């Protein structure tokens, strides 16, 4: 394993501190406990949106802190949920009279740590669970995982919160977006967690892992490597089965790289996935292609389809100014 780091123990702090310096115009990093919050004061009564999760998925979530999206993000250790004290400190720093909405990817560690924080919070609060990964049935014993669709929830709810929606509205809106958003990923290689120094899983030269999770947790099944078209048919097919989009339905298509996949390949996947849905009469009218919800240096990608009605499209299009997503300002 070769990594551009000094040592395992300082990696996260040095990186977060670099992130904070590079984006000092929008965000601020609190080192003890770790959280990133936006700088510009929000309107009084605005619902405070706080997300978080293990590190190693950058730019998620820190890259989405800023006006029109998150108020704060709590980065945990690499692939390890953040802790309740981070969430409480972040809430204290950004709560502004409108209550707190925690946006949590459905993973046991994240859910439990945010739950503890919520129990300790003494202001109005709600928790929004994102569970967009269709690799598993809805009936899976722990529910579905929250993956690349999370940023869509964060963007849309962020826009609503910015324009004055109250806590209950934000929570309901987030649940609605989660329901119309479905994702599934494929890994061509494993990631390597720096502290471990070797790949999380072994995978043959001619194998891929279908339905992989964003920590390199193995997914639905191991398959033989195949063409991009076959891979897209598998992933998009699973998503389509789940969302069952109507003809004429408008949608956002998000191709997410896991970290080591060239943009050229991601655009190729976008091409194939948009053909897949165009053939089925879906109107792909918004796109997002790039590395947004990564798994360190894993090769592979996920496909996310999000069925957006006019209201949701308007919220997606609303101005956003974060380290990673920026438009309309």
């Amino acid at each position, binding site marked *: 394993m070769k990594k551009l780091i000094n040592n395992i123990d300082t990696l996260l702090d040095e990186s977060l501190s670099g992130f904070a310096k590079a984006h000092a115009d929008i965000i601020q990093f609190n080192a003890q406990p770790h959280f990133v919050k936006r700088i510009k004061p929000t309107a009084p009564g605005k619902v405070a949106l706080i997300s978080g999760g293990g590190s190693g998925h950058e730019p998620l979530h820190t890259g989405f802190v800023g006006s029109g999206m998150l108020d704060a993000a709590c980065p945990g*250790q690499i*692939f*390890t*949920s953040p802790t309740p004290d981070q969430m409480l400190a972040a809430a204290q720093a950004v709560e502004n009279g409108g209550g707190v909405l925690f946006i949590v990817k459905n993973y*046991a*560690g994240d859910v*439990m740590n945010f739950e503890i924080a919520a129990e300790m919070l003494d202001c109005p609060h709600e928790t929004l669970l994102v569970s967009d990964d269709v690799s598993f049935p809805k009936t899976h014993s722990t529910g579905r995982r929250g993956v690349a669709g999370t940023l869509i929830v964060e963007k849309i709810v962020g826009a609503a919160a910015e324009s004055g929606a109250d806590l209950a509205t934000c929570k309901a809106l987030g649940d609605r977006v989660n329901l119309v958003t479905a994702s599934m990923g494929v890994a061509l290689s494993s990631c390597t967690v720096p502290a471990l120094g070797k790949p999380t899983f072994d995978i043959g030269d001619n194998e891929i892992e279908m339905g992989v999770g964003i920590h390199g947790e*193995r997914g639905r099944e191991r398959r033989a490597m195949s063409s991009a078209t076959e891979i897209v048919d598998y992933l998009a097919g699973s998503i389509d089965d789940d969302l069952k989009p109507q003809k004429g339905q408008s949608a956002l298509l998000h191709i997410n790289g896991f970290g080591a996949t060239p943009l050229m390949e991601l655009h190729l996947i976008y091409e194939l996935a948009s053909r897949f849905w165009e053939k089925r009469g879906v109107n792909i009218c918004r796109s997002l292609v790039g590395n947004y919800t990564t798994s360190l240096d894993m090769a592979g990608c996920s496909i996310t389809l999000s069925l957006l009605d006019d209201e949701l499209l308007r919220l997606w299009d609303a101005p956003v100014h974060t380290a990673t997503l920026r438009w309309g300002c």
Partner: protein
Amino acid sequence: MQFVPALLPRLIQAIDNVIEANAEEVTALDQAIGDGDHVTNLQRGIKALTAQSDELAAQLDWAATWQKIGMTMMTAVGGASGSLYGTLFVAMSKAARERPVVSGVERALDLQTFAEIFSSGVDAVKLRGKADAGEKTMLDVLIPVAASLRQAATDSVALSDVLKNVVQAAITGMESTRDMVATKGRASFLEERSRGHIDAGAKTSQLMICALVGVLTENLTTPS
């Protein structure tokens, strides 16, 4: 029984040693069906506890001690195991506060009180994790250990035998996870593929419990 807070530095040291000694093996287990960070997570907690061990040894009562341990685990470990160990100790603290725990210089605990308090902690872990025995988690160690403590307390077994039973319950519980299909935690995504591997969290629970018992047993035979 000499289970007093003064023992804490030695207990923490023992846990540190046993996790260190088994780090590679446990990491391999968490890599096989999880994400491989379990040892690193725990070690962050153990390091934080070690830094506080003198303070802990001087705590006024068990409730405060467990509260401190719980908060330390909760803030230092992260991940699933951090919230669960945090929950375990915070709940034990709560249970202790609700009970007439022996106070004073020694603050020794009687077995029955401890068994009840520990069981309350394990119940809180079950609630937090929405999990029970048989789901291939640390609960497959914690639940039988709590049961064996309660059993011993009612049967008034000799303390040395209690400790032996606890070790046996922990090891059996840990071993039992091997053939289970995980239905909670990260390993649940592997479904049938999770079978055949011991759960990392069960393994470390067992290792830590056995390490604690080791210190207590030593203390029993050569009281400090």
